């Protein structure tokens, strides 16, 4: 089901996007050129705002990440269902992990297992497509895509039960 998003240009200010929710209520997001966002809940009349929350750039980013993180994982889950034998798992970095505080490249996960690390979830925010110099921290969840066997290998590498540099 796709929602219809109505766009309104606000000359000199930015753009307003409005949509109707499943319960018939309408909400809108104003994206201002200066980076501020307004989250608008429309009144029963439908034309005006009943409530407007103005977010600065940082606040908007955090909220976008909170709303978007599960979405990424869901999409991966969908992907996994469509491609047989490929699975997705969120693998934890325990504090005992030899890679806590080290760059992702050090794990050589792809070279050693064939699995891909597509994102790292940390403190509710998502770091998509992390590069080899992305520094892992204890408590991270590493979103990994691969065969069952490869995922098990990556899990062992990350928690330190598979000796580094071999295999």
């Amino acid at each position, binding site marked *: 089901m796709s929602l219809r998003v109505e766009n*309104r240009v606000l000359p000199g200010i930015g753009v307003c996007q409005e949509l109707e929710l499943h319960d018939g209520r309408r909400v809108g997001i104003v994206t201002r050129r200066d980076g501020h966002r307004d989250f608008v809940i429309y009144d029963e009349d439908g034309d005006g705002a009943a409530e407007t929350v103005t977010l600065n750039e940082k606040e908007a980013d955090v909220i976008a990440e909170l709303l978007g993180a599960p979405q990424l994982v869901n999409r991966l889950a969908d992907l996994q269902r469509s491609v047989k034998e490929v699975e997705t798992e969120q693998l934890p970095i325990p504090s005992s992990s030899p890679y806590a505080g080290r760059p992702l490249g050090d794990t050589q996960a792809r070279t050693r297992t064939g699995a891909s690390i597509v994102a790292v979830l940390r403190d509710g925010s998502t770091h998509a497509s992390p590069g080899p110099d992305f520094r892992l921290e204890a408590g991270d969840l590493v979103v990994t895509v691969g065969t069952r066997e490869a995922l098990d290998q990556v899990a062992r590498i990350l928690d330190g039960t598979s000796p580094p540099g071999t295999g």
Partner: protein
Amino acid sequence: MVLASGANGGSHIATLLVELGAILLALGILGRIARWLHVPVVPLYLVAGLFFGQGGLLSLSASQEFLRVSADIGVVLLLVMLGLEYSADELKSSLRTQAPIGLVDGVLNALPGAALALLAGWGPLAAVALGGVTWVSSSGVIAKMLSDLGRLGNRETPAVLGVLVMEDLMMALYLPLLTALLAGGGTGSVLIAIVVAVATVSVVIVLATRFGTHVTKLVGTEDRESLLLGVLGLTLLVAGIADQLKVSAAVGAFLVGIAVSGTVAENAVELLAPLRDLFAAVFFVTFGLSTSAGTLLPVLPLALGLTVVTAATKFATGYLAARRTGVKRRGRWRAGLALIPRGEFSVVIAALAVSAGVDARLGPLTAAYVLVTILLAAAVQKLPNRLAAARQRRSAAAPELV
């Protein structure tokens, strides 16, 4: 607190610094008061200027010349920022969709001002100027107001902003016309000024949409300092040339603002904003300074009458604009009331006219008029929603019959 003026010759710079410092400090305090009272600061600047002006409390000597130049730069900065905030595409699409309402807006709101000037016997030049004063709503005051009231997401807001864009665009034609008329040329030179203005505006909008990136590249740089100097330099240069060509410096600056686009424009807005705040404040104060507080009282009844009439015509404009976009009645009311405040453009027009020797009463009249429209608008903005809420409460309190 009369400042020692014309003290011994060697301390000219000292007097200048003291006067300038006192003025800016006073403006800073006014800004705080405005924030505290939740009103726009522009009318307070005007009033401050009036009370410290000729015959007022403060007699300025050394800083007068500096203030006059700063005021001119203030106008140029107000206009370049306006241009920077609109993209050429926005202007083009507004022109396509909003032209009819722009016409209604111009006719409904310019005529009352022009009629008053003619009835008062101030002459046709004053009529053209006062027509401009009552025509243009303040995009600065209104954008701030809509944002503060949390109405940017409202359905009627694009209609309100559309009217403002059309007015700002029309100013690119009106200001050269006024400048040519004030310069006292015959029909020929006025026609030339209009043709030049129309041609320049169209060329700049076409250039900005097709080749905006080249102009942008000319001044665009990673370095904040060179970006500031580049944009400011280009603006003053073009404004100066436009003034030389009698197209009005303000319009030249506006066009530079339109031509610069994208992230360079966004960065330039950020960098120029503090400069605009400083010089525009000086412009508003200087406008007030040039008229004494004593001249304000005699024109106050005129200003009030003009406000009543042009608040009604502006309301009608906003109501129609919102209805065109399919907004329901409460939204139309909000749109109508939102457009009432007049501001920076009215003052720019009046300053141009008065400095060219049109009836001096135009100055205090405009100052009082801008002040009253802004205060009136601030007082009535929440009315439509409050009335609707009251009606709801009444119907909820009514005993149920079933």
